[in-house]
């Protein structure tokens, strides 16, 4: 087994996801199958190979710091599940 049920539980917490018992069981099996398949990559010696995170070589892209048209406050809030006084409303964070 590449990962145990407890690892899956831990990763779920990191990802802010929650699973019931049955899902936890299924995910543990499926993630094991998938990670076992990934083992294939270890057939390759990559010790001296640099990693690529982006296929195109682009250096930093800058623009002028000019004021542009942007969303109105009401547009920005239009999709909020809850808003009040021009702000996004969330549950109390600090007790």
């Amino acid at each position: 087994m590449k990962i145990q049920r407890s690892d899956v539980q831990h990763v779920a917490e990191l990802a802010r996801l929650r699973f019931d018992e049955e899902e936890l069981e299924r995910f543990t099996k499926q993630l094991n199958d998938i990670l076992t398949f990934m083992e294939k990559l270890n057939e390759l010696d990559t010790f001296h190979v640099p990693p690529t995170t982006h296929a195109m070589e682009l250096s930093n892209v800058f623009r002028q710091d000019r004021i542009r048209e942007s969303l109105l406050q009401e547009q920005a809030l239009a999709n909020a599940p809850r808003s009040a006084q021009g702000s996004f409303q969330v549950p109390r964070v600090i007790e």
Partner: protein
Amino acid sequence: MTMELYLLTIHEARDLLDRKEIRAQELTEAVLQRIEALEPRIHAYVTLTPEEAMEQARLADQRIQRGESRPLLGIPLALKDLLCTKGVKTTCCSKILENFVPPYDATVVKRLRDEGAVFLGKTNMDEFAMGSSTEHSAFGPTRNPWDLERIPGGSSGGSAAAVSADECLGALGSDTGGSIRQPAACCGIVGLKPTYGRVSRYGLVAFASSLDQIGPMTKDVEDCALLLQAIAGHDPLDSTSVPTPVPDYRSFLREDLTGMRIGRVEDLPHEGVNPSVLKAVEESVKILVSLGAEEIPVRLPHYAYGIACYYLVAPAEASSNLARYDGVKYGFRCGESEGLLEMYLCSRSLGFGTEVKRRIMLGTYALSAGYYEAYYKKACQVRTLLIQDFREAFEQCDVIALPTAPTAAFRLGEKLDDPLQMYLSDLFTIPVNMAGLPGISIPCGFDEQGLPLGLQLVAGHFQEGNLLRAAYAFESASGLRHRRPPL
């Protein structure tokens, strides 16, 4: 005549519109009627905007009356439901964005709008573009017009089915690991994934940002060139879009391939690949050679590692991108009465579907302390090897010929419970995204069950012109242009 107008390609409709033989309103009405007739069986669309479409068509007719002619003016198109459309719901076919109405247009949408295109609606897809069958849509699957018991491919399955069934004249899809090309192959249409950076991703809901590209899905190659022309080019709003000049793509559409070197891959992975697929590609290379191209044997020795590489890199990027869905600024929210953490857990657990959760988990795991080196970094190193393979191959040839998918469209439900089997459908398309290269899928025949097969052509960065040239010549010579499903 009105009833048959939906059968037109974009360039055919353009000629008739410019000659004032038809009006954009008639054309749009015909396509809307076609949609109404077929949607109960196909389910290509998740949102239809018939009133807006008729209004856009009316405005297009006015512009045409004034003598204006633009390639897409008055042409009814469909948009994959992860492209932001101002004032029109954009859901990514996820419950978490079920009611999201973007306050702005994606750059590609804005460009088409300025061209005077008519938007029919938003097409179905795998949730957040994660899937190869469109079965992972929160709103139910799309069916393949060639066989209603089969998948249309994915994730741009709605766009592919809509084009194939003449429920639009053309569509936009997006491709992270094959999501334009594979459904194009499954539905017997043309689909092109441009070079990474050729088309702006601004307003495309992000899945894996180093791989995602938007591209055209059309009835034939000429339409593909037209639609690509309209969306390609630099955009200051996407810092990964590249300022390389955009050529006139239609100028590449010639029926002769003299001087073109076609790479035939000698060491193609063939495990799980239907022999009829390999045979169709072999025959296709012969056709390309008969048109004047030279066949060059090339090797891509790391190709078979693409899937393992991709299913670490893409979920890693996705797990980071999808962290934004927290129930605060937009999207589904629940559990707020129990506090902030409970709100995150509840909103995300009920909002995301199973495949999306599976990939977030995989990505989070691959990036987590202790596993980063073994999984994510390893995959990024293998990505370098895949890129080197292509670089060496393109020193010897201009275009590489490959299958698009290992099999024709499979049955609905066939791979739904086995995620790894589903991932294997992307065998031939994934390395192209890893290297940021352009690729096109064009119909190249049928399997023993009469289901369409796709030929994939791949070229070097910004060589879309070469792809279109080879594809156009092939399409003319093969007699497979715009074949229709028996609906």
